[in-house]
């Protein structure tokens, strides 16, 4: 690709990232006008993320055929940090403070682009607004699509966003009637 074509591509990627973050921010403030209660807005963001996540799983798997099948949380965290989050958020992530026999861990998303230019008012934070909960919802939705039931909550920590994930259970494939596997 010629130099300025590459430059245009880089610009358009950067601009579409800004467009996405600005639109998301404007959506959050619109929800706050609609629901007034920040906790309710956080739940709406989680639901929205969940619905996106259920479809993102297939989108991600179609684009990354080399991703191994995950069977435990360590592998899930590895795929999230090394493939999924860089692919969709264009930033790096790593997992930390594993407890409960590797069933509970935190994904730390460094310099989360979603809230890079965002200053959430302290009163909203205190009242339970979790600005990046859509990401936690998307992770929960994507993992449910691959039969892992988890709980996920997002917390802001300076420029980073931490997603606390707790594994719940493996969802069995529900077979069509009459098919006894």
């Amino acid at each position: 690709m010629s130099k300025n074509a590459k430059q245009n591509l880089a610009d358009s990627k950067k601009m579409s990232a800004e467009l996405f973050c600005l639109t998301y921010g404007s959506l959050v403030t619109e929800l706050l006008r609609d629901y007034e209660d920040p906790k309710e807005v956080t739940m709406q963001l989680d639901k929205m993320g969940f619905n996106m996540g259920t479809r993102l799983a297939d989108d991600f798997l179609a684009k990354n055929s080399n991703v191994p099948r995950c069977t435990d949380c360590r592998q899930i965290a590895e795929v999230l940090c090394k493939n999924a989050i860089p692919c969709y958020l264009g930033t790096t992530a790593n997992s930390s403070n594993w407890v409960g026999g590797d069933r509970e861990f935190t994904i730390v998303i460094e310099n989360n682009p979603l809230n890079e230019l965002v200053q959430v008012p302290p009163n909203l934070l205190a009242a339970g607004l979790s600005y990046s909960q859509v990401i936690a919802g998307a992770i929960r939705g994507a993992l449910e699509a691959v039969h892992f039931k988890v709980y996920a909550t997002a917390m802001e920590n300076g420029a980073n966003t931490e997603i606390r994930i707790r594994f719940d259970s493996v969802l069995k494939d529900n077979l069509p009637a009459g098919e006894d596997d």
Partner: protein
Amino acid sequence: MTIFNIYIFDREGQCLYYDEWFRTKQSGLPPIQEYQLVFGMMLSMKSFSERLSTNDSNQTVNSFRTSAYKMNFLESATGVKILLNSDPAATGMPDLLQKIYQAWVETVNSPVANLLGEGIDHGFLQSKIRDVVTKHPAYV
């Protein structure tokens, strides 16, 4: 070398898509039963190949072959199952299956499909999949 037909199932075993290119013999079953047969075959294939496995390494069934055809499998972690029936000597099938999976994601799985509720226009999916299959070297 050629590609005979294709089945796509969702996680619950519902046949989302069927298409054929070179098929001279029919199964004699109504389509619904044929789809259930194919889906049941894939589940059974998976389960007994696991039971007979000599070690507990994580394995996937990629295909089974007869003298006349090769049934190629792709199952995504989300449970989407694609079965492509091809000439026994056909090569590059895993790559073709992955491209079909991408075509399915871009149409049926796209945000538009969900919003429109009644599901994406079948022709849209058909044109995409036929385009991918007919352009593949194994398709004569």
